[in-house]
């Protein structure tokens, strides 16, 4: 087994080019190396101008998302041994504008995240003297899966709808909105409904399901969206059939 492997890395240097170019780097290969190790080797020993994001190197910060052989992956969790001895192609995440080399701008997502109000909102606040809002394990299980999102943006790279219509709010934002809607301590589902029930919200989604497939934390954003579609549609039906209210 060879102890070297070739990385074909996309470069974009706006000061001298207007398109992506590919450069090949040969890096050492061991069974326990991940793509990020290869990139770090390139940066340390071969070409210090290579620009990319990474941080925790253990799959929890969500910084190192890139396209590896055309699939959105966390480079700290993608083993070179899965591709060896073939060349590994590394490109920046699809559907996002590229700032430089492998770095994309996720400002669009950050702005959308704020619009769905990802914090607990109450209609009636308890005074502090009455203690904390308590929750049973079953109540936590309702939303726990959707709270595991690390904002790595792999789902946005995989979602063809987001690629075709950048106004689409996207899987992670809707999953996070559901995390709060389903939280028993939150009382503001109707406030989030305004944004979510627009065409750029859940109704733009056609349940391709790619987001769930690529999610490294098994959040299942597609499931969150479909569940919200069902509950929002049933609510709509109720208010359509009984416009005088149901309470």
């Amino acid at each position, binding site marked *: 087994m060879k102890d070297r492997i070739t990385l074909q890395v996309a470069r974009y240097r706006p000061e001298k080019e207007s398109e992506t170019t590919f450069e090949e780097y040969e890096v050492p290969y061991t069974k326990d190396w991940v793509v990020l190790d290869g990139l770090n080797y390139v940066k340390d020993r071969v070409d210090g101008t290579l620009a990319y994001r990474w941080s925790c190197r253990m799959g929890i910060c969500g910084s190192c998302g890139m396209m590896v052989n055309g699939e959105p992956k966390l480079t700290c969790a993608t083993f070179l041994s899965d591709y060896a001895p073939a060349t590994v192609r590394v490109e920046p995440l699809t559907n996002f504008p590229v700032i430089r080399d492998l770095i994309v701008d996720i400002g669009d997502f950050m702005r959308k995240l704020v619009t769905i109000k990802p914090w607990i909102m109450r209609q009636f606040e308890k005074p502090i003297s009455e203690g904390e809002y308590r929750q049973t394990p079953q109540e936590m299980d309702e939303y726990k899966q959707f709270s595991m999102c690390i904002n790595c943006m792999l789902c946005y790279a995989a979602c063809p*709808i987001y690629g075709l219509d950048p106004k689409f709010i996207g899987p992670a934002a809707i999953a996070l909105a559901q995390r709060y809607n389903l939280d028993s301590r939150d009382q503001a589902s109707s406030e989030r409904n305004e944004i979510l*029930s627009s065409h750029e919200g859940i*109704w733009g989604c*056609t349940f391709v399901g790619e987001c769930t497939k690529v999610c490294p934390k098994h959040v299942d954003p597609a499931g969150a969206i479909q569940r919200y579609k069902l509950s*929002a549609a049933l*609510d709509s*039906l109720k208010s*359509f059939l009984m416009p005088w209210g149901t309470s």
Partner: protein
Amino acid sequence: MVVKRQLEPLLWLLFSAGGVFAALLMPSLLLLFGFAYPLGVVAPPSYEHLRAVLSHPLTLVVLFVLCTSSLFHWAHRFRYTLYDGLQIKHLNEVIRLTCYGGAIIGSAAAAFLLLRLGLS
């Protein structure tokens, strides 16, 4: 704008209902009427038996629900496929009109044909 907002969830419900009915009933019906009967794999039903089955009020209702919901299922799905797959967003209004309009006309035709059978 408000009407459009209210409409989208209801259209999605129709789409879902159509998907369920189409999934449950169409495979067996198409297997029989599109494949088995024409090829003679199974003897087609006698005219009297088929007419009796089809004219039964329950059958008429089931078939009407199947036809209407399936047409709206098609309309909703096809509209989004054209919008996303072909990226022809500028024809958005035309697409919506054609798809849902087609579904409405088809449902009216279904109602007419089924009623006519039931009453004849």
